[in-house]
């Protein structure tokens, strides 16, 4: 198995995902088989190949004028929030 339980626990922590005790072995197996599958890529000769982040050549990040184009809709957008107070999103206390 290419990934250990500790590997998966670390990845889950980085990804901020809780994995239950029962789920853990299933993820270790399936993630290991995926990692083994994609390891095929190491066989390919790519020393002088440029990485490609984007499928279309010549695209540039478009810029626009620094002028206001949106108006305040915060009440509409915050209607989906689990908890809001005075226009702020409420979460458990972070700082003691």
């Amino acid at each position, binding site marked *: 198995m290419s990934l250990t339980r500790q590997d998966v626990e670390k990845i889950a922590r980085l990804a901020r995902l809780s*994995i*239950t005790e029962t789920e853990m072995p299933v993820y270790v197996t399936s*993630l290991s088989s*995926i990692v083994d599958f994609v390891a095929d*890529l190491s066989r390919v000769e790519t020393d002088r190949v440029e990485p*490609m982040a984007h499928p279309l050549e010549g695209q540039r*990040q478009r810029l626009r004028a620094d002028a206001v184009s949106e108006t305040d809709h915060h009440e509409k957008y915050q209607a989906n929030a689990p908890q809001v107070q005075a226009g702020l999103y409420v979460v458990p206390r*972070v700082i003691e």
Partner: protein
Amino acid sequence: MLHTLSIGELARRLAAREISSLELTRHFLERIERLNPSLNAVITLTADQALAAARAADLRLGAGERGRLLGIPLIHKDIFCTDGVRTSCGSRMLDNFISPYDATIVTRLKAAGTVMLGKSNMDEFAMGSSNETSYYGPVKNPWDTTKVPGGSSGGSSAASAARLAPFTTGTDTGGSIRQPAALTGVTGVKPTYGRVSRYGMIAFASSLDQAGVLARSAEDAAAVLAVMAGFDPRDSTSVDAPVPDYPALLDAPLKGLKIGLLREFFDGLESRNAALIREALGVYTSMGAETVEVSLPHLPLSVPTYYVVAPAECSSNLSRFDGVRFGYRCEQPKDLKDLYERSRGEGFGPEVKRRIMTGTYVLSAGYFDAYYLKAQKVRRLITDDFRAAFEKVDLVVGPTTPTPAFAIGAKIDDPVTMYLNDIYTIGANLAGLPGISAPCGFVDGLPVGMQLIGPHFSEARLLSAAHHFQRATDWHLKTPGGYQ
């Protein structure tokens, strides 16, 4: 039957006031009510809004306005944000999310006078090839309800095949329009990357995602794509290039068209599927096209490449789902870390979590070069292979999927087996190329699709090629029993 008519014929009858958009809408709403329970294709019905939109379209028609899609009903894949209507992306994470805005393609189709009947089921966050990962349950294939319709646009493909709407919208990141179109016998179009706006389309893999259409024919799809496509300043990857009048270009002569037969496509293909693709190619040569053998030597690496790039991008895109501003939040979080971990752990299904974790792994320190950077280099090799092929041929034709629809539950336990369903479709996403799947026959009563892939921005030629095939054959007119 209203539901077996083409969009062109429906538009003609609406313009001639032989039928009203209201009647047409009621017809499809009744079909959904009666037929959807056996399919689970539609997960949110917007009947009241549909009737209001139909009345508005009828007023526009009455005032003399004409348009290819004016008064035509549709169903949107539940990945497109729709103002005031739940947009779930097939996930518990967004089960309670009422979108506060419309995606650009929703706005465009609304402006053209379409009538939204509802939102279709899909694999969760567009991750899947069978529509079995949805929080809302699997979608059934109308040709055999023990089989999958494909995914991730499974609800849209099943709805189009069962004629619950004249057309549906979908998205394609690794094949999610073309593969379900093939498994349900409809025509699915994935445009060139950048052709259609991604604004308001919930992001999975930003360098691969593209919106498109699933319809009864290339002719119908052309009318829809003409409205959906075009530059959008709100999408930073949208291409500022004019949109051809696709419907007007469908009848461009086929003679002399050079079709590439991809050697790598036929290796290992199930023999009856292969026979149907060869017959389809025979139809093309009888119409004056020539076939040329081409090879894309790096194409077999497209699946492992995709399963590094797409998860990496999704791990970044899905980090916004944190239980803070919208979406699912766990009960009684102990602290912020618990809030994030349990909201995400409980809100996401297993396939989504697998892909987020795969992505996190390949981007993590110590593995970035070996996996992600490597995959980006192989991506370039695959793209260069296509470019070289298109110097010799106008388009490539081959199968869309390795087999027809498989049984629900048959492949869901092993992720890698499921991933191999996309073996023929993924290359086009990596290279940003347009692709179409069109029905070309049946194996054991299940539809088989043929795929056409072209160079960037060759949608007009692809649609025309598919259209010529559909004028010479009638696979695309077949309707599943029980949904006629």
